[in-house]
């Protein structure tokens, strides 16, 4: 029993060191709640956001330190290596940017509660990235999911309650399926450690069944086709910061799990059988996700569908199980993070208490009313479409090379087809913003009240342009094999 080994392992300071970023964030959430009690009513929102951002930045500092010191903490239960640190960094960044949109919450919603839940969700996702065994994985997953169930419903709109309920029911279902897979995996291999899956007992068909159930759970949480049905509704209904968080941070956590399974726990003999479904799911997501994005008239929904496609690209790079693929998948994850959150930042800048600026009609003629916002939105959409001079172009190129390098030529062609479809979906928004005005659109309450989304827009723009011209691809990212 591996857990017994973990218990026998003497816990040292180095173990806590590996967990320190997560501890800081989870502790930060407690501090946010505490300060909320002490401070006067008017200062709640700003203090919660500031505290949250501080704890995230602090955690980011520890992550930078952990990047070069791979360590298997707690007897291999939590692996802090370049691989998980990059994923954790992505989660921290995504959470940080999402926190900047918290002001779009309705007045009567406790912002401290929302911030604390977001931070806990982030720590859950981070725990998943370093999980070395199924128990820690499930712990992180449930911490993430429970926080998200509550967050999804944090608005008085009917759609928000519907989103929360839908997410609760379907996601628990997926968790159950995944858990069943985990139990079977444990039954077949006699261990919960990922590394034990490398040598399954030969000839036991249950192993593949278990792995299949496990993958279904992963695919559901990632929103990959054909397990994506819940995503658009939940994304549309959930409050904007939560949607932003879910579109990147949740997926980063789950992608880390998928990558770790593929890279350290896939037996060489079974690689073809195991990678084939991943290949198919990636291909389906790229095509169907982008096709569905074509007809959307709500930006949150559109970004949900486009996210399905974009995650499909990333999973396509995993499907080759090559080192190159992992490296460029991580790079594209960062690219996706900045492009998507940049787009969400523009939506946030157009939102106010009464209305989240996500309806496509409210973008009509935006270029004539708010040229800077329209330009920023176009820039991020161009990036998502994979056109230069953005990180989307460079990321696409690197993904394509890794997919070709792995020998999946047809997958590379499908990636191009999916991109071509998606460009129409993004260009549609650009057209709405830039088309000549037929009649005067009533300039509604579309004015940014807080400077925070502008900070997010600035960060994302610089990153999308900079990483596009000079791709800083993380190098030490192959997962630890324990």
């Amino acid at each position: 029993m591996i857990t017994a080994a973990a218990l026998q392992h003497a816990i040292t300071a180095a173990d806590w060191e590996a967990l320190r970023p997560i501890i800081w964030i989870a502790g930060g959430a407690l501090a946010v709640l505490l300060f909320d009690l002490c401070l006067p009513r008017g200062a709640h929102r700003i203090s919660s956001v500031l505290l949250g951002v501080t704890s995230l930045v602090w955690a980011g500092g520890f992550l930078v330190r952990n990047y070069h010191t791979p360590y298997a903490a707690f007897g291999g239960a939590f692996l802090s290596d370049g691989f998980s640190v990059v994923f954790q960094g992505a989660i921290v960044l995504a959470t940080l940017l999402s926190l900047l949109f918290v002001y779009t919450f309705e007045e009567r919603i406790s912002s401290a509660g929302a911030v604390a839940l977001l931070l806990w969700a982030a720590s859950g996702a981070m725990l998943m990235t370093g999980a070395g065994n199924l128990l820690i994985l499930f712990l992180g997953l449930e911490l993430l999911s429970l926080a998200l169930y509550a967050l999804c419903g944090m608005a008085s709109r009917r759609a928000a309650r519907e989103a929360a309920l839908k997410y609760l029911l379907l996601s628990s279902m997926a968790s159950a399926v995944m858990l069943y897979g985990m139990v079977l995996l444990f039954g077949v291999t006699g261990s919960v450690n990922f590394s034990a899956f490398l040598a399954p007992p030969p000839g036991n068909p249950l192993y593949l069944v278990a792995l299949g159930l496990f993958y279904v759970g992963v695919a559901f949480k990632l929103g990959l086709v054909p397990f994506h049905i819940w995503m658009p509704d939940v994304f549309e209904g959930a409050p904007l910061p939560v949607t932003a968080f879910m579109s990147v941070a949740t997926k980063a956590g789950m992608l880390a799990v998928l990558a770790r399974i593929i890279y350290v726990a896939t037996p060489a003999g079974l690689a073809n059988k195991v990678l084939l479904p991943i290949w198919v799911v990636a291909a389906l997501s790229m095509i169907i996700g982008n096709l569905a994005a074509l007809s959307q008239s709500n930006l949150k929904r559109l970004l949900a569908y486009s996210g399905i496609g974009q995650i499909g690209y990333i999973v396509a790079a995993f499907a080759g199980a090559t080192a190159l693929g992992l490296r460029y998948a991580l790079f594209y994850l960062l690219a996706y993070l900045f492009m998507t959150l940049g787009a969400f930042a523009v939506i946030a800048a157009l939102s106010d208490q009464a209305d989240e600026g996500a309806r496509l009609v409210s973008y009509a003629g935006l270029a004539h009313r708010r040229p800077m916002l329209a330009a920023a939105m176009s820039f991020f959409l161009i990036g998502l479409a994979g056109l230069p001079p953005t990180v989307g172009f460079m990321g696409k190129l690197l993904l394509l090379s890794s997919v070709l390098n792995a020998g999946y030529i047809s997958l590379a062609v499908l990636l191009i087809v999916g991109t071509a479809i998606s460009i129409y979906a993004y260009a549609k928004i650009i057209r709405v913003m830039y088309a000549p005005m037929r009649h005067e659109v009533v300039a509604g309450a579309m004015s940014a009240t807080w400077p925070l989304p502008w900070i997010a827009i600035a960060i994302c723009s610089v990153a999308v342009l900079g990483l596009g011209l000079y791709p800083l691809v993380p190098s030490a990212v192959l997962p630890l094999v324990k």
Partner: protein
Amino acid sequence: MITALILGPILGGLLLFALPRTADAAARACGVVLALAALVVTLTGSTLPDESIAWLQRPFIANYHVGLGQGLGFWLVALLNLCTMCAIAVIKVPRVRDFTALMLLLEGSMAGVFLARDLLVFALFWDLMLLPVFLVLIGWCGHATAAWKYLIYNVLGGLTLLLATAAFGIAAGTTDVIGHGPIPVLTPTWAAWIFAGFAFAFLVKTPVWPFHGWMPETYVELPAPMVALVSGIQSKAGLYGFLVIAWVLFAEQMHAMVPVFGSLAVIGLVYGGCMALVQSDIKRVVAYSSLSHLGLILLAIMSGQPLALQGAIVYMLAHGLFNVALFLGLGFVEVREGTRVLSRLGGLGVSNPRLAGALIFAALAALGLPGLGGFSGELLILTGLYQAGDYWQTIVALLVIIVAAAYMLRLFQGTMQGPVSDDLPQRPDLSAVEVLALIPLAAMIVLLGVNPSVLSSGVEPSNAVIHALPLQKERA
């Protein structure tokens, strides 16, 4: 300094947005000055060394490598800067500042395509090129279909090019291969597929029949200064790709495909000519005539005969010049009369002698009047084709040149001669600026017509690249 040719217009275009929204004249003046500066740098820069900065080490080596040289790229960039300058000078659209900025972005990205010495840089600017045109199509044109057609065709081409570039990088280990260095040897399967990707992108961008679906509407919808650049110079990007990428890196595959592409070129040549005869929209006439001319150039490129190739290069430049002049002239007609329908127009020459003079000059250059640029190009191409033994193609091309005379004269007569349409405004003749903008183009057309060897300093090196290869067709 070479980088300045790319970044100058792009950054300058972005800086234009700092001007006040209504500063039309200032924006136009800034645009002309920037394009003129780029032209001066180009003309004095033929001896500038290449600029190269390491870019990617993995998964393949790619450098930001740009070079001007003295070959085809040099002349195309010079043509680009000259035409941009003339086109910006006569911009007459709403929101001049934004339009000028997009013109400069287009100029910079096209310069990037012609200056790139690395396939990845080439692909980057190739894809960048479509953004300004798309933005103008959605921001200044009424019909969305033109924008969507343009986007879908060109995005497909651009993405295929990107895929081919990635595949080339993976297969060859480097993309820093345009016009210099040893030619990487690829396995036949890879080479065939990669070549197919490049060729598709080039065929769409040129465009060549049957990939021209986006062209007529785009040309009709775009305001004159932008369509002048797109038809005059952007259409050369595909032909340039065939000359410096396809013929050099994929000579074997090109040989295999010569009959196919040659047939497409002939079909385009005839089809474009016939369609131009029956169009009722003046811009559509030139659009289809352009399809026909580009078919002729592609035919010459496919023959691989040295004389025909020289002719192709001369004709590429001449076509750029007279097409820009034609579209600018038709733009003047459109802005003045508010219509493009041939049957509605008529008799403009009576009150607009300068406009009529400009248009007849451009039309004569387009139909191949001896002494003007079009003629010397056509003559070289036809001689070359005949020497290469492509007799029936030569005859077809000759017949189409007669058709060209017919549709160009129909265009001129329909607009400038005949009875005056009283219900049309007959606005004043060309202003001094508009005349001044056309003079450099006309001068260059004459120069190319009387002395095409002015390019010879440029044609030789690019030919040297081509001649390093077994390009001559083996004939039984």
